[in-house]
C-alpha cells in the first residue's frame, strides 16, 4: 500500500501519543497503586453512625500506618460532620468519608481532594497537607434544595 511520507509521520506521532498517555495511566494504576476514591469499600448507609470509624467523625491521630492522621467525615443533607477541622502543616492524612442519605460531593476547593460520596460506599483519599491556609469543602453533586448551603472548612496551621 502506498502511503505518503508525511502521512506515515503523523500516524506514528498519533499512535505514540496514545501509547504514552495509556502507559502513564497504566503505570499510575498498576505500579503506583492509584485507585478511584471509592474503591469497593461498602457500608450500610442506615447504620453509618454506629460503625467505625464513622461513629467518631473528625481528625484522629493514628499509629503504625502509612499516614499520621485519619480525617473522618459524615455527609448528610445539607451538612458535613465535622463542620471545621484544624490540621497541622505537613501532616499526611487519610480522608475517609461517606454519606447517610443521597449522593453528595466532597471537594476541597483548590486541591486534588475531590470525591463523590455515594450511599453505601466509603470514599478515601490520602494526601499530605503541605500548604498553609483555609480550605473550603463544598458539595459538588446536586443533593437537594439546600445544596448550595452545604460546606465545611479545613484549616492547615503551623504547630
Amino acid at each position, binding site marked *: 500500500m502506498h502511503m505518503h511520507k*508525511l502521512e506515515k509521520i503523523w500516524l506514528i506521532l498519533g499512535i505514540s*501519543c496514545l501509547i504514552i498517555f495509556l502507559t502513564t495511566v497504566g503505570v499510575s494504576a498498576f505500579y503506583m497503586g492509584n485507585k478511584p476514591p471509592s474503591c469497593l469499600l461498602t457500608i450500610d448507609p442506615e447504620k453509618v453512625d454506629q460503625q467505625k470509624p464513622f461513629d467518631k467523625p473528625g481528625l484522629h491521630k493514628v499509629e503504625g500506618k502509612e499516614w499520621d492522621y485519619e480525617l473522618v467525615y459524615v455527609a448528610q443533607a445539607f451538612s458535613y460532620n465535622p463542620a471545621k477541622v484544624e490540621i497541622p502543616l505537613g501532616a499526611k492524612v487519610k480522608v475517609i468519608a461517606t454519606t447517610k442519605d443521597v449522593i453528595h460531593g466532597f471537594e476541597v476547593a483548590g*486541591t*486534588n*481532594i475531590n470525591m463523590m460520596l455515594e450511599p453505601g460506599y466509603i470514599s478515601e483519599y490520602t*494526601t499530605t497537607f503541605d500548604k498553609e491556609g483555609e480550605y473550603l469543602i463544598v458539595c459538588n453533586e446536586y443533593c437537594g434544595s439546600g445544596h448550595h448551603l452545604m460546606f465545611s472548612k479545613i484549616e492547615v496551621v503551623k504547630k
Partner: protein
Amino acid sequence: MAKVELKAKQNTEIEDRSSLKGTMASVLFLLLFIIVSWLGVYYLFVDRF
C-alpha cells in the same frame, strides 16, 4: 492591423494538489496543543495536594 502574438507559448503553473504540507502543519499544531494542555493539567495536579 492585427497584432502579432509575441508569446506563443505560455507556461501555466499547476499547483501540486497532492501536497500534504498544510495538513502536516495543522497536525503538528494540534499535537503541540494537546501536549501543552496535558502537561499543564499534569503540573497543576502535581503542584496541588
